[in-house]
């Protein structure tokens, strides 16, 4: 009897062991892709261990392609051109790409596994994007649902950005969120002091990242930020400038204005800010100060729902009806818009009706 049991155990473990060994060997043969070269724009070459997604490998080497879903293959942001060695187009990528993109060898970098040497092409700007460790030095309430966050950059300790650009703030996993999430917020200070950045963040109901900022983040906490991103920044011309913002959309415009004040810009500027009631207004004192410092700058808050207790004597209603009053030379006006998609759509329509050329309208819709 004992012999039978011992025999059985031996045979079963023998066969299992053999198969396990076979699988280990197969794993070494098939799942090991060895060193792979990633050639970027024909200039830079990275030597990395293959087997992971292109997005992950690039991130690990300090090259940050935009991604909103964290590599789940559902946002379609991390597109990049792969000229050689990306393997066939996968069914998971197809829904995100149109015909021209497919013909241009555009792929989703989170879906492409690096299995051999590959060559990719990405815009040069991306090399300027870095991941920073930063300490929270101040959290200030601007209104009941908007906070201003000041971050001291630790490593690397300085950032190069254009006024109007945004960064991505990473919220680590916390009580209500299972994985780290990154969200984009505009930088609200001017790019003179390179060692800190300020963000203006409005609470998003149920938002994973803003809830973290509003309820969990403390002064002196360390956070990760990536940036700068975006092509919403001041064009260096002599045209008149019209800034239009709503809600927390003040951030990039504040950065732009600060920059213009420091540079003693002589351009004609108007800033129209749309809000519902008086309690939604903020930075009023600062903007009045700018009105004195700048040669030709007007701040025009417009309230859509002023209540009795607001004692509001300023402009009421929507912004577009006031355009004729403030746009003096439409052909020579640049418009910088930031706010909700609904507002931006309405404002663009209004600007065009007033003769502002479409290619001079720049905007940052709540991306």
């Amino acid at each position: 009897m004992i012999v039978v049991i011992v025999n059985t155990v031996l045979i079963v473990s023998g066969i299992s062991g053999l198969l396990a060994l076979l699988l280990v060997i197969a794993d070494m043969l098939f799942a090991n892709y060895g060193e792979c070269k990633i050639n970027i724009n024909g200039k830079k070459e990275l030597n990395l261990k293959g087997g992971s997604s292109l997005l992950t490998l690039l991130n690990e080497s300090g090259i940050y392609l935009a991604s909103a879903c964290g590599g789940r293959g559902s946002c379609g942001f991390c597109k990049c051109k792969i000229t050689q060695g990306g393997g066939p187009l996968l069914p998971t990528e197809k829904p995100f790409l149109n015909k021209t993109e497919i013909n241009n060898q555009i792929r989703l970098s989170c879906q492409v596994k690096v299995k051999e040497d590959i060559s990719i092409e990405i815009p040069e700007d991306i090399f300027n994007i870095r991941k920073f460790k930063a300490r929270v030095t101040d959290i200030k309430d601007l209104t009941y649902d908007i906070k201003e966050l000041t971050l001291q950059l630790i490593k690397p300790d300085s950032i190069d950005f254009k006024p109007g650009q945004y960064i991505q703030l990473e919220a680590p996993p916390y009580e209500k969120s299972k994985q780290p999430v990154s969200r984009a917020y505009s930088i609200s200070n001017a790019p003179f002091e390179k060692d800190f950045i300020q963000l203006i963040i409005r609470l998003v109901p149920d938002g994973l990242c803003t809830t973290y900022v509003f309820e969990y983040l403390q002064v002196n906490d360390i956070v990760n930020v990536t940036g700068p991103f975006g092509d919403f920044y001041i064009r260096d011309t002599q045209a008149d400038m019209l800034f239009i913002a709503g809600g927390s959309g003040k951030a990039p415009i504040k950065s732009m204005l600060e920059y213009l004040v420091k540079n003693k810009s002589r351009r004609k500027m108007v800033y129209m800010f749309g809000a519902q009631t008086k309690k939604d207004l903020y930075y009023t004192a600062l903007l009045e100060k700018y009105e004195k410092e700048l040669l030709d700058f007007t701040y025009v808050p417009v309230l859509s729902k002023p209540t009795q207790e607001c004692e509001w004597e300023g402009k009421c209603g929507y912004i577009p009806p006031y355009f004729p009053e403030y746009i003096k030379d439409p052909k020579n006006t640049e418009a910088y818009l930031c706010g909700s998609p609904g507002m931006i759509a309405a404002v663009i329509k209004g600007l065009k009706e007033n003769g502002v050329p479409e290619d001079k309208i720049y905007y940052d819709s709540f991306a």
Partner: protein
Amino acid sequence: MKETPHEIKIHNNLKAGVISIDGFLGDDSRHYHEIIVEDRNELLKLNTTTEELADRMNYFTEISFEHYEGSVLIDDHYEVEYRSYRGKILCPFFHPGLFRKGEIFLYNKKNDIRICWTPLNIHMIREHCFLEGKGSKHRLEPKELYRSLFE
């Protein structure tokens, strides 16, 4: 019951703290497939389709979107307000693309029903017949939704 790898991923997306802070299932213990099947039955009873609901919701959404601040009165007795928030949200069923974050509040003055939906709700109703689990913040009860939109 066994789930395909794809279903496991969807199920995970619907949980709290993955795509939205409270998730899409609320305190509903049913599998999301069951929720969909039962709601589809409800819609059949009401003699309506997901297309019809989604189109109607879209109609109100688009008009209120243009009146981005404050509420607007549509077709005499629907008071609708669109509140937009920064950012975009993913479809938990892995549909490509991102949906605007926002809430549309509709008050039907005729039958005194108030409901609220998000742009993502419209997509999930149209494509997946998913009205979220009971107890979820943006759960839409088929009957109430139908009455508020069409009466």
